[in-house]
């Protein structure tokens, strides 16, 4: 087998994998659509305004809502602040 054939095979293989991934992506999105809609409904039924992503401290839980924002409530030595620490972990005692 010539080198260019190997190269083109690898190239085509990767293209096929990529196309397959993209198709499966849109299929997955389509499949998850119903769930997304019920999530959206739940969001409106519970009148939620924020995602449950940054749950490490009260002040990070609902970034869109007014609150007694203060980064040092539960983790007085938390160096980072809003909306959540990314680089520095909380003191070990607080971490499970």
């Amino acid at each position, binding site marked *: 087998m*010539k*080198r*260019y054939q190997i*190269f083109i095979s*690898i*190239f085509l293989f*990767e*293209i096929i*994998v*990529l196309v397959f*991934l*993209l198709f*499966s*992506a849109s299929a*997955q*999105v389509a499949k*998850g659509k119903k*769930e*997304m809609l*019920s*999530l*959206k*409904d*739940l*969001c*409106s*039924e*519970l*009148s*939620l*305004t*924020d*995602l*449950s*992503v*940054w*749950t*490490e*401290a*009260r002040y*990070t*839980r*609902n*970034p*869109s*809502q*007014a*609150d*007694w924002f203060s980064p040092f409530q*539960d983790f007085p030595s938390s160096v980072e602040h809003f*909306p*959540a*620490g*990314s*680089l520095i*972990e*909380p003191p070990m005692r*607080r*971490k*499970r």
Partner: protein
Amino acid sequence: MIKHLKILEFALSSLLRRKLKNLAIVSVFTTVTMVIASILFLTHSFKKEALLILQGSPELIVQRIQAGRHALIPLSYVDAIKGLPGVGDVRPRYWGYYYDPLTGANFTVIAYPEGIRKTEIIEGSLPGANEHGYCLIGSGVADARFLQIGDELFLQDIKGRVLSLKVRGIFKKSSQILTNDLVIISRPDFDRLFGFPEGHATDLTVQVYNPTEIQNIAGKVKKLLPDTRPITRSEILRTYDSLFNWRGGMLLALFASSVLAFVILAWDKATGLSAEERQEIGILKAIGWETSDVLTLKFWEGASISLISFLTGIILAYIHVFYFSAVLFEPALKGWSVLFPDFRLRPYVDLYQCFVLFMVTVVPYTASTIIPSWKAAITDPDSVMRG
């Protein structure tokens, strides 16, 4: 066509001569592409998902502000706001945070609102009207406290007494992004847990009939009740949008050094053509390669490396983000967290972003291989006669 294939064949042999160097370039290139593509995929699908879900959040929220801080809102405000033209329903929201010293986690406690429908998101059953002593919990809470349906969740109320709540339902893992830390309990339990003052709510949600009127009504509310702060849904969506952009950007900044290293590598290639390479180009020209043939060779040398690296990087990024939940930098994007949502992201892929990434990696790399050869390729080849 056959000519291109043959030049490609020669380009590949030529690359194989410096196996280690080119392997290093391919791996650096692949890694850089993978990291950047992962960040783009992750932020994009996160954002997309967030914005889709939050379409369901209330159009307008009215909070009371006291001394610049959030305060509980008197229920008398409900009727005042209802009196404004264009306003539909106004409902109080009862919610708060519960810091659980046992697990070190924060729960979000919500008083059971009417009108929840049972969907496949909720496992278990919904409570009947006027029932209390139950709770619906997010899967993060269930995991942290090792709870199953039928178990008891113990919380400590404001007076230090234990409040025992029977787990009626658990939100499925797939809904974690919205429900991970929720604890939903009845109004009487809520009042007892927090000692909530009579006649007050946490804040109010306002239904507006005409979406174009939301801003207008927010202004009227502010005028009518100067101690309130209206928050519109579009503001929330906008904030989330920029929040994810900001965090994505911060991640990119973290990896800027690797990108920089890559740029330096490409720059090095672009500026310096080694004497050996110059000599080779001269030889090719001397034995009858045209300038365009030499440039085609250089094109294939650059394109083969960058195309393969780019595709590999994109594929790895996709697998990393959507099959392995972006394990490598999930912490950096979501922050450290006690209740860590490990939801699988739905794979929203923005082809435009991929295209832009292609344009800023493959194209400049290939160009940086061709351009320096240009000068060598257009000069007379007689210098090779003298070695």
